[in-house]
């Protein structure tokens, strides 16, 4: 029996690849397996090759696999583009209709199933996906009832007949392939799962759920890949909690509307990707200058400009850290797991109110859209901290104004909400005094700048870094952020098995940079590799700038639109450790 397996389905966009994947993985989730999904899609709705890959495991996993065990193909293109990933002895389940051919030189087993023919016999080619997935499910020898339950849920709202037909399609597909194969394939029998209930979701779902439970009641946003699911989830849920999503005319409105709502006392957010983030820059400065809480999610995708809108990248880091003119306090945090996506949103809203400044939560396409198993989320960890929000303040004297920007020891001033009688004050993006009135006084200017920028001196987030560091003096320390953690984990273990003392550090607090925490791990490492999905090594630059480690640091970058694979990280790291060179690893 095996403890993990990779399954992929490929076809034309709009052909049912998505729904097949959804049902297949829901059923696996019910059985208790750990899953990690990867979607390959392009910027069009119908047509064009698309594929979804799921890694199935009996233990937690956070990365895609290097290879593939089973490929379900609706067309020859899906075979041609993906068969090379199959490991020796792998399986292709393909529609007999297009007379599938296995590329030369591959040692794989082909099952040509009359997918379209069976579907058409049942009434329409729409049942194709169920014939195909039924066939591949049967080869794994997994219980059909669980699969049928997932089918029922997917199609239940379309009526009993549709459900019945789909279940029949599953049955016919599985029957056909089992006859051909002579029963489930013994090499593909998964060990039973641990039976622990898990959630199965994408990072965007987890973030939207986190925002909702953090008390976010208004989201203003403009649709963009790969952020839109956050908005879509909240459109569904917010009405149940009295709130709403406003689809604004652009991202400038999205960010400034969220500022208005936060100013008036509601936790409000926006979410976008690179192009939208660029449009929000002036608003981010306004939030910083007026000390208004603001939460922005940036789901990074391939840049610059429209770039690779449906592909993986981590190249907005500099824009998030340095973006907006002038100097403001700003926090940038980077969830590195699906669970983080949830808890970090709660923390982001707390930080925004506690430090009264913009907070950017950075993810990347793979973390935002990759569907994966998530530990059951803990209600008791939902803590809401609104910082120095004051209510029922004493009445003001005539012409008196509330000191909204009072100079305090830690720079954080009391905040009142409009509607409060004793709280009248002015807010402006112009430099201002303690009651918010414009001021050009040089002394005031300097004090206000120091007050605002000083606020983050006391900043502490839940986990600024996460270390998997078994060694005091490692041969190599691999540093990453966002979705790359799982891949580095796997590479680390492989290097360790070969005798290299390897540590792994994930940086979660990107800005302000957690120098002290990072130093603890970089100081004793012989070599450091900083791994990131961009061309110029933006995270590496942060390390060079903030931690004294330039001489032993190597930047490992990838910017072809695809995530790092475990094998690739392993072999490049090894090459580096072996050669002991400090050159940039060539791509």
């Amino acid at each position: 029996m095996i403890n993990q397996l990779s399954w992929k389905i490929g076809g034309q966009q709009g052909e049912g690849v998505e729904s097949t994947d959804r049902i297949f993985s829901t059923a696996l989730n019910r059985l208790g397996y750990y899953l990690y999904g990867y979607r390959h899609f392009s910027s069009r709705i119908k047509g064009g090759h698309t594929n979804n890959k799921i890694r199935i495991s009996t233990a937690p996993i956070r990365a895609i696999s290097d290879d593939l065990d089973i490929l379900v193909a609706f067309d020859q293109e899906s075979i041609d583009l993906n068969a090379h990933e199959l490991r020796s002895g792998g399986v292709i389940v393909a529609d007999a209709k297009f007379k599938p051919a296995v590329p030369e030189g591959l040692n794989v087993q082909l099952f040509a199933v009359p997918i379209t023919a069976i579907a058409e016999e049942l009434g329409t080619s729409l049942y194709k996906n169920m014939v195909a997935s039924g066939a591949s499910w049967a080869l794994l020898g997994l219980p059909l009832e669980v699969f049928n339950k997932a089918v029922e849920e997917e199609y239940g709202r379309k009526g009993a007949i549709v459900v019945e037909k789909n279940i029949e399609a599953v049955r016919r597909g599985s029957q056909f392939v089992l006859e051909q194969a002579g029963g489930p394939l013994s090499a593909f029998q998964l060990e039973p799962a641990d039976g622990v209930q898990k959630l199965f979701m994408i990072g965007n779902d987890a973030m939207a759920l986190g925002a909702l439970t953090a008390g976010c009641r208004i989201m203003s946003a403009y649709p963009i890949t790969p952020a839109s699911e956050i908005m879509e989830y909240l459109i569904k849920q917010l009405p149940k909690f009295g709130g709403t999503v406003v689809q604004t005319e652009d991202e400038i409105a999205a960010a400034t509307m969220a500022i208005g709502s936060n100013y008036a006392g509601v936790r409000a957010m926006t979410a976008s990707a690179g192009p939208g983030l660029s449009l929000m820059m002036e608003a981010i400065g306004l939030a910083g200058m007026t000390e208004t809480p603001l939460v922005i999610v940036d789901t990074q995708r391939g840049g610059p400009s429209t770039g690779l809108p449906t592909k993986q990248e981590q190249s907005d880091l500099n824009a998030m850290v340095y973006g907006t003119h002038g100097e403001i306090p700003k926090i940038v945090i980077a969830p590195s797991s699906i669970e983080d996506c949830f808890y970090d949103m709660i923390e982001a809203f707390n930080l925004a109110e506690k430090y009264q400044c913009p907070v950017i939560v950075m993810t990347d396409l793979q973390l935002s859209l990759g569907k994966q198993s998530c530990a059951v989320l803990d209600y008791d960890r939902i803590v809401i901290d609104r910082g120095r929000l004051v209510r029922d303040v004493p009445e003001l004297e005539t012409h008196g104004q509330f000191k909204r920007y009072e100079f305090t020891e830690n720079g954080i001033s009391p905040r009142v909400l409009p509607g409060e009688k004793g709280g009248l004050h002015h807010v402006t993006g112009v430099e201002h005094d303690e009651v918010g009135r414009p001021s050009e006084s040089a002394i005031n200017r300097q004090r206000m700048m120091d007050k605002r920028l000083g606020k983050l001196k006391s900043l502490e987030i839940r986990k600024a870094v996460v270390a998997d560091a078994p060694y005091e003096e490692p041969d190599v320390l691999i540093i990453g952020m966002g979705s790359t953690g799982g891949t580095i984990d796997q590479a680390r273990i492989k290097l360790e098995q070969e005798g290299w003392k390897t540590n792994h550090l994930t940086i979660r607090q990107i800005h302000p940079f957690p120098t002290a925490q990072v130093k603890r791990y970089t100081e004793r490492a012989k070599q450091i590799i900083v791994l990131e999905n961009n061309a110029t090594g933006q995270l590496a630059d942060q390390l060079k700038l903030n931690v004294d480690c330039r001489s032993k640091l190597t930047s490992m970058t990838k910017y072809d639109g695809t995530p790092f694979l475990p094998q690739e990280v392993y072999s490049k790291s090894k090459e580096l450790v072996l050669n002991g060179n400090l050159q940039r690893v060539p791509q």
Partner: protein
Amino acid sequence: MATFKEFRNNVKPNWCPGCGDFSVQAAIQRAAANVGLTPENLAVISGIGCSGRISGYVNAYGFHGIHGRALPIAQGVKLANRDLTVIASGGDGDGFAIGMGHTVHAIRRNINMTYIVMDNQIYGLTKGQTSPRSAVGFKTKSTPEGSIESTLAPLEIALASGATFVAQSFSSDLKQLTALIEQGIQHEGFSLINVFSPCVTFNKINTYDWFKENIVNLNTVEGYDPSNRIQAMTKLMETNGMITGLIYQDSSRKSYENQIVGFRSEPLAQQNLKISEEAFEGLLKEFK
């Protein structure tokens, strides 16, 4: 109840003596008192420009934002606390150039708030460049040979965008302006009030006298019916927009907030943020 004096603060405006914006300030203060507001329940959100300074000159909650973005900020405020009376305000450049996109969409959205534009047909704060409201041929620093772009007709655009309240006034007519702001505040939905507010320093063409000569008060137009959208559009086109008074009002359409399904009828800002464990468990179900 408060008197208009309670909406005054002790800040001296930095406007040039004679600037039209003084009257807009006074009219907001009077209208607020007349409709029975108190300072803490009024939020004045403004853009950037000479006119944008107005949020600092009214004793209320004031938010002076960024150029062109008064409207989205103001809409965010209103959605967060629907008990507040929200007035957005700014210049013609603010609302009809850099912020034009927001203007049209705020009109379409129809959130219950009032937008007052101080229209001086020029950029005052940046010392006299052409504005979308400048006449063709108008010579400014940025159009030394005279403007060659056509003049924007914001109220016609407003009507075409589905506005439910469109009015225009003139700084010299404090009485009419105050009354229109009161009506705007009381209107359920988005009210747009464009105010001819002369810039005495940089606009030597569109002066107080020029407006007095060229504008027609709709009060004097017999049979004018502000509930007739076609008539409103025709009148604006006929007069090149040189009319004052209530041009159009549609009282039948509900405001945005009153149409959102599930939207809380009490201010969201006063809601308890933490959800129940039961509700949370319910949310997790979808992902099992």
